[in-house]
């Protein structure tokens, strides 16, 4: 029995890794193939000729050479979306409502993490830090962001959702939207207390901005370098670790069993001796912590944050959760990766394929068209709602 449990645990640790690898590879191959087919079709038309005039290279080659870099960029943002989407999906799993305040919980995590790093920089600790210490400080910031965001999520649940638990389903939803606006302006107020400036800039330290060169390719007159910055690797690795940890918690521990029980049937779960309120708080805590960590990682990757920084990633993560099948953890993972990839592919190639008529600025159209299409044709999402095991 003991040995069985042990093997079970290892499986639960490896399973999400396999899934992530599969999803990443799958969406890369599908989207890349799609782009190449499009490029082949358009190569002989005016689109290809225009590009040839401009860069002296065929559309097919252009697409092929750019693909690896685009895939890496897409994966990075995809994992961020996946980490946020899990927060939406977990709450939906147990309470069956969308926690729209999750995007502000994400922003709170980002601000707490960045503020700590700014304080460290002010005391001159950051600039003299060795590489190991720099990573230490980053981990400190991520943990602080996680704790703050987790605590905030639990508080929000206690104050704004628990009193409405037995009201009709629309009521907590409206409460969530209200909390979202409230938190946005609270962050704005607190951050602008000292100087009136409410945006924050991630301090530069450590070797996070360095870029590992993976290769160099010639494209007409230009050289395209293929590489990945260290912070992108940090984002991907931390997201993978968190997702594996979460999967383990939900699927291989006693607490996870309780969460799944509450998700299936709160009344029966409480008859079995499970403290439903505590489990719901715990769900918010875990979801909030994931969101907070994603916030700090987002700030690390994109440098600048403001109180409204959560809105778009939040909306896209929500789309990702719906795309994968809301309430379904594997679905959120898949949805996040697919959405991040799709958005980056569309943004990178749309300008060229439309001869500059519709450029990168329209990449969000794809994210939200997907939301509409999924809601019309497959409302349960790609992976289905997975009711038996939702959580």
């Amino acid at each position, binding site marked *: 029995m003991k040995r069985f449990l042990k093997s079970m645990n290892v499986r639960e640790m490896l399973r999400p890794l396999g899934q992530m690898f599969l999803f990443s590879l799958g969406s890369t191959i599908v989207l890349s193939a799609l782009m190449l087919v499009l490029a082949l079709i358009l190569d002989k038309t005016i689109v290809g000729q225009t590009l040839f005039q401009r860069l002296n290279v065929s559309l097919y080659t252009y697409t092929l050479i750019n693909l690896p870099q*685009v895939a890496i*960029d897409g994966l990075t943002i995809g994992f961020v979306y996946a980490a946020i989407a899990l927060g939406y999906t977990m709450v939906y799993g147990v309470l069956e409502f969308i926690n729209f305040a999750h995007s502000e919980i994400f922003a709170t995590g980002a601000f707490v993490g960045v503020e700590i790093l700014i304080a460290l920089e002010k005391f001159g600790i950051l600039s003299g830090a060795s590489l190991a210490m720099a990573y230490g400080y980053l981990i400190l910031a991520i943990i602080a962001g996680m704790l703050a965001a987790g605590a905030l999520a639990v508080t929000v649940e206690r104050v704004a959702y628990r009193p409405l638990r037995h009201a009709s389903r629309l009521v907590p939803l409206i409460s969530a939207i209200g909390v979202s606006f409230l938190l946005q302006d609270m962050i704005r107020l607190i951050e602008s207390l000292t100087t009136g*400036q409410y945006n924050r800039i991630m301090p530069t330290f450590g070797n996070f901005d360095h870029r590992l060169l993976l290769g160099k390719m010639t494209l007409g007159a230009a050289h395209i370098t293929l590489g990945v910055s260290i912070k992108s690797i940090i984002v991907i690795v931390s997201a993978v670790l968190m997702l594996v940890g979460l999967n383990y918690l939900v699927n291989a521990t006693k607490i996870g069993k309780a969460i799944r029980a509450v998700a299936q049937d709160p009344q029966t779960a409480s008859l079995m001796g499970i403290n439903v309120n505590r489990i719901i708080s715990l769900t918010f805590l875990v979801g909030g912590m994931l969101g907070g960590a994603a916030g700090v990682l987002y700030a690390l990757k994109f440098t600048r944050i403001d109180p409204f920084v959560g809105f778009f990633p939040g909306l896209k993560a929500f789309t990702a959760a719906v795309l994968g099948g809301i309430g379904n953890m594997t679905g959120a993972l898949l949805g996040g990766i697919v959405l991040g990839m799709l958005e980056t*592919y569309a943004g990178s190639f749309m300008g060229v394929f439309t001869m500059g008529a519709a*450029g990168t600025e329209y990449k969000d159209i794809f994210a939200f068209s997907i939301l509409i299409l999924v809601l019309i044709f497959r409302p349960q999402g790609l992976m289905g709602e997975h009711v038996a095991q939702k959580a």
Partner: protein
Amino acid sequence: MTKRLWIALLVFIAAGIAMAGPVSAADQVIKIATQTPLSGDQSAIGVDMKRGAELALEQLSGPLTAIGFKVELAPFDDQANPDTGVANAKRIVSDPAILAIVGHFNSGVQIPSSEVYHASGLANVSPGNTNPKVTTRGYLEVNRVVGRDDVQGVVGANFAGEKKIKTVFIVHDKTAYGQGIAEFFKQKAEQMGMKILGFEGTEEKANFDSLLSPILAGNPDLVYFGGIYPQASVLFKQARERGYMGMFLSDDGYDSADAIKIGGATILEGAGTYYSTVSGPASAYPGTAKFIQEFKAKFNAAPQPFAAQGYDSMGICLKAIENAAKANGNKLPTREAVAKAVRALKDYPGITGTFTFNGIGDPTVARYFVMKVNSADPAKWIENPVVQTLDIAPPQ
């Protein structure tokens, strides 16, 4: 009952007449409003624009106080947002004590807000709006103390030409200001035979990955950004991270110490980063040494770009109100008279130049600069060297 009501009404009217009787100028308050971004991304510049105006009000309101007016500042925060700007403008014009407005950093905010000023005849002196439309609408009320983007864009393109730039990718922020100047840059660059590899607008503030793929594919000699520093710096930083070593060129919206705080040392690498501006560092003007000293003494910080222009705009408003009041027998002038007085000023001696406005409110000669980003230390931003200085009259 009706009789008592009539008596009460009469008493009330009598009291009203007594109170509204001849009032000496000493009781009268003149307010001058400012509208700049005081919070948010662009507040570093907006706050110092206001502070410049505040300092001018303190130092230059003497003549008006001598006549017997009390002069006050009414600062408003437009948040760099057109909607907020227009809402504030409506509040401003509904306050009869406000006789002039020093205002706006963003052309995209100034243009709709000034429609409101125009409708109620309120004089507007702009310390920093460069879009041609600001003045070309021909409103009597609207004036500015700086140059225009149809010249600034050309200044930028000429500079690129001198640097032997052959290929350029142009990005803008889709605002009236950013897109406007990017288009003027593009026009001139095309005329000069540069190859435009792309012209893209974006509202993205964080993730430029997918925009960078087409930019890097063309490996342009220059990336031009028409817009404001919070976007430009992030884009430049991410481009350098991906190995782009060409030159960056931006506009006066890039001129803030926060630009280097976001961008970091990487933007100094390769062919470097330059920006054109209509407002050189305060030290580029001969008359500003004293201003810088007093500004530092009062606010405990060096003035950001456009602070000196804020000072001059306020000075012009004060002078015009003084002239209009004197013409009105030392009584409170009307808004219309103030607006006319601003336009009628001849050779007003400001600290950033001597101002006379032409028929549409542009200064008869404006000064343009091209600056080079020289240090990764935000505190040294104001020491960025001037690469070029040009005095150009506005196009007719």
